[in-house]
């Protein structure tokens, strides 16, 4: 789906203003053909501006794109990967958390299990999915499906787009921390290849709980961080307005995560962000996943490959 007219993000305002100017002149064009040259010049200016704005995105701009209300979510990808995908529900202990979507499908030549967090498009969906923040039961549902995939030797792909695990009263009573910890514990030892893709927000433990994988990919404008920039700003600066500083300091963008050796590859988005062309980004993402599954197939010991990857992470003086 190519979304129609979208309200511009803050850093896109100069572009939007120029666009309205061009449109106004174009409306006058039939009456005043002399404007043609001016419009041509403005178009050139527009292209230059577009290139310079999207070529120099700050971390906070990418955060805005990652949270864009029209950004494709897990279900949008699943529908495009395989329209016949089959959803699996429930944690088998009394709850089905809609914020965690699990499904079996064909991805190219591979049969895979995909598990991903879901944000919800309209108000009702958003409330049901807690704005993409899974409950402990969501993580336990994911784990049940991971075990299912291991049993039938299916590679696993996890799609991550969450501000974090849900911070609520029942979530604590049902042991949110243990649900995350136990997923990490079990993911470390699953006998099948696992790939994760950060689609939008990779928020802290809530993201990592399905992100301890052999290969980690990030979309170009997605972010991955230990705490939300807002949370970091209010704790360290004691000013919630210092979000931009927090974004810069924490190194949350795909490129920075790659430089730190955390992630393996970056998936390029259409100019301006994934929301401009859902079909294209789904196709590109699928190609990347298949490419990396092919690579993982060459590994002899997939568990060792995964634990070695995480064992190495850390920066200290010995």
């Amino acid at each position, binding site marked *: 789906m190519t979304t129609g007219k979208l309200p511009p993000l803050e850093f896109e305002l100069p572009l939007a203003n120029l666009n309205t100017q061009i449109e106004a002149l174009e409306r006058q064009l039939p009456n005043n053909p002399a404007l043609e040259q001016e419009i041509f010049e403005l178009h050139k200016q527009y292209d230059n501006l577009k290139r310079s704005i999207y070529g120099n995105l700050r971390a906070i701009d990418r955060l805005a794109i990652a949270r864009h209300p029209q950004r494709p979510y897990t279900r949008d990808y699943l529908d495009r990967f395989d329209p016949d995908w089959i959803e699996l529900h429930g944690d088998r202990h009394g709850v089905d958390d809609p914020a965690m979507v699990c499904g079996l499908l064909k991805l190219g030549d591979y049969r895979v299990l995909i598990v991903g967090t879901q944000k919800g498009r309209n108000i009702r969906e958003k409330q049901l999915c807690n704005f993409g923040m899974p409950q402990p039961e969501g993580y336990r549902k994911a784990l049940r499906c991971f075990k299912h995939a291991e049993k039938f030797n299916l590679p696993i792909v996890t799609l991550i787009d969450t501000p974090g*695990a*849900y*911070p*609520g*009263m029942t*979530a*604590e*009573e*049902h*042991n*949110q*921390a*243990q649900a*995350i*910890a*136990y997923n*990490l*514990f*079990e993911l*470390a*030892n699953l006998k099948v290849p696992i790939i994760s893709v950060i689609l939008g927000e990779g928020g*802290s*433990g809530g993201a*990592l*709980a399905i*992100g*301890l994988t052999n290969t980690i990919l990030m979309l170009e404008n997605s972010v*991955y*961080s*230990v*705490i939300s920039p807002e*949370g*970091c700003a209010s*704790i*360290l*600066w004691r000013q919630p307005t210092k979000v931009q*500083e*927090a974004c810069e*300091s*924490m*190194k*949350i963008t795909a490129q920075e*995560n790659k430089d*730190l050796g*955390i992630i393996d590859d970056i998936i390029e988005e259409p100019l301006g962000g994934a929301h401009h062309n859902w079909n294209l980004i789904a196709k590109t993402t699928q190609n990347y996943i298949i490419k990396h599954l092919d690579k993982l197939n060459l590994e002899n010991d997939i568990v060792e490959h*995964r*634990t070695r990857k*995480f*064992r190495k*992470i*850390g*920066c*200290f*003086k*010995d």
Partner: protein
Amino acid sequence: MDLKDWFANRKKNNETAQAKQILSTEEYCALWISCFQCRELLYTRDLRQNLQVCPKCHYHFRIGALDRIEHLSDANSFCETEANLISSDPLKFFDTLSYEDRLKEANQKSGLKEAIITGTCTIQGRPTCLAAMDFGYFGGSMGSVVGEKITRIIELALEQRLPLIIISSSGGARMQEGILSLMQLAKTSAALKKLHDSAILYISVLTEPTFGGVTASFAMLGDIIIAEPGARIGFAGRRVIEQTIRQKLPADFQTAEYLLKHGQIDMVIERAKLPQTIANLIDLHSLDCHQPKPKAIAKTPLKTH
């Protein structure tokens, strides 16, 4: 120097010397402390002898890693490992102060090099691997060093087949090391999985306070999970939850007793009984002590009519 000035200086020096003999207000305050819970005025030396537990209301004060080790391990048995592992500043992090300055500050305040001390010791004669976190250093937060030291002590326990005890006290992952801190959750949990598969006992002790990334990894993965009375333990902080659900939480929310009621931990044990409890648990899980062999059942021929 003018002679008049010299006399004036001598007088001033005398005055300050006299003032030094009398205890300052801070020094008086250091002798006495008011219990955070029952407000009872306690003599700090008595409190120390009582393992920092209020004799009146049994409030458990926070204690540092060194005190914790001294209390748990047998005298002179503790052997520190990885003592020289220290933080670097991979992100060149800067908020209102730089991370390097904050590290120095934490070091001066607590006298420690990091928020955790690891090593081997005996607990009532039983050899163990022990790790104790210290909330006084950087809020006990977990960065690369804490993650690495935990992982190495797990690997040591695995190699030497010793039971592992980790005493947690932490505000969560260390923001100043960004995503690297988050990955320590994965690293420690993956190491614990190997320990688990080798059937080596891991006892996790949760103390005031244990939150965030630490509960969401090794702290909640104990074979046995013990908490100290009144300790606050959880994933998200109380304020964050109240802001999210827009309602007040019960007063005992996220306390050790609340967690026990909700099936999240095995037991709440007061500080004085902790060494004995751990020793008993080690005995009950010891692989050296074989279970009695099942008694041979006398074979009775099948009766056929």
